[in-house]
């Protein structure tokens, strides 16, 4: 992509955001808390969402990406299945944070949720790349990482500035990780790094 094209698409993106911001702020206001909890990244592990159109069955896929052809991910499932996953403008991509399809690489693991198409592909509503959710014990704390013990394995959890959050005793997510303690049990949601097997931490939940 040439620089001029890039700035053009970036400009278009900003224009689009401006348009959407105006619409968003002009929207109806709904006040109140829900009795239901959240889902988002946790939804990767949740039951597939029922399809809106009953004629289109909901689909769920899980596996390693073996090839990427334009916007189609060729995925080898953990149990020998093969999936073709179609990404669109409306597909959300999570890889440690909200990102775009360009961040997806061959070799990444993935969970995808979407609709099964008549040609056998899955039109993805949402994909979560390299997402892991593990229960660990904190064994060490350093400036840029937590040393975690998962079962008998040692894992390094990298702290990513502006991304890693913590939740203490069910409180709100915060960027403040200074209340972590060595020896604590924790639940870590993050992105696995295929290169070295370590984790980039998205969220560490303590004392739940």
């Amino acid at each position, binding site marked *: 992509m040439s620089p001029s094209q890039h700035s053009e698409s970036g400009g278009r993106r900003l224009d689009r955001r401006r348009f959407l911001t105006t619409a968003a702020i002009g929207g109806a206001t709904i006040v109140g808390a829900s009795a239901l909890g959240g889902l988002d990244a946790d939804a990767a592990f949740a039951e597939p969402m029922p399809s809106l159109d009953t004629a289109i069955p909901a689909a769920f896929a899980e596996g390693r990406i073996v090839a990427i052809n334009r916007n189609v991910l060729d995925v080898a499932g953990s149990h020998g299945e093969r999936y073709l996953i179609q990404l669109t403008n409306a597909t959300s991509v999570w890889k440690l944070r909200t990102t775009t399809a360009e961040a997806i690489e061959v070799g990444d693991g993935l969970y995808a949720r979407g609709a099964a198409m008549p040609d056998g592909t899955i039109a993805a509503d949402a994909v979560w790349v390299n997402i892991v959710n593990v229960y660990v014990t904190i064994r060490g704390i350093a400036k840029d990482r937590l040393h975690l*013990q998962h079962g008998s394995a040692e894992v390094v959890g990298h702290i990513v500035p502006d991304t890693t959050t913590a939740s203490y005793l069910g409180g709100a997510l915060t960027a403040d990780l200074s209340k972590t303690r060595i020896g604590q049990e924790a639940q870590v949601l993050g992105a696995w790094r295929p290169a070295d097997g370590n984790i980039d931490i998205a969220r560490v939940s303590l004392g739940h």
Partner: protein
Amino acid sequence: MIPLVSHLAPLVCAVLLAVTGAGKLFGRQTDRLAANTVLVRVLNDGRRATLALRGVGAIELALAAALFAVPDTVVPGAATALLGVGFTGYLAYARTTAPESSCGCTARAEGPIGAKAFSRAGLVVAGGVLAATADRPWWSEISHRPAAAAAVLALAAVLVTALMADPARVLMPLRRARLRLFGHPLEPATGERVPVAATVELLEHSLAWQAAMPVVRSALLDHWDDEGWRVLHYAGAYTDERGTHPADVLFALDLTLTVDSAPSPAVRVSVIDDMTGEVVPSAVLAPTRTPLPLAT
């Protein structure tokens, strides 16, 4: 140097055997440990395996006492070396027949037999051989050359700890002490702006989210901050009498609020048709809450 080490070997072996022997003989977990060893299969019975393990513990304690009291005789050292050889043989047998079994060596819960278990048995053999060659009791050696003896004992303590203890259990208190001394390496958060994940959490606990959920199809697609607002963009689809249409679902929230500071958040919601670019006012129905019936 070598005579110094061999003179002190009985003391080191005595301490080592006293710890592991007492652990096996008096330990509350010995039953459970024995159940994981290959002894159960050899002796055909868990109770007998426990007894055997406790018996070995008693032998270790007796040897420890002998090494401690009469270090300048050959017999305790030779017996220790023999015990070490026995351990090695047992480990080799257990490893070939049941590689997943625990070795039961230190009377502590541990995984399959590995290099560490063999080095421990090797250490007992080496210690026994050295102790057997000692011709002078360890106490006179210590009083004769206290500095050198202290250095050798410290080295032996490090070696034995490295082979005996779970490294995480040794390192954890050290790491804790370091945090207490030098402070926590991670600084508390500053600034008013909360992490995006906190805003998403606030949204997902809101009534607005519950109302919009039937329309939302994707997870968070994009987000940005604008004049105190944080806009969260999702992809969705809404249905009207003409069918189902793709749409953008937008939420705008105060970018300083979290579920802790805003238990009842105000969220702006809009749905925009993807094709026409027009706001669809009827796509999200504001929820009406029916009050719970009260007993009167």
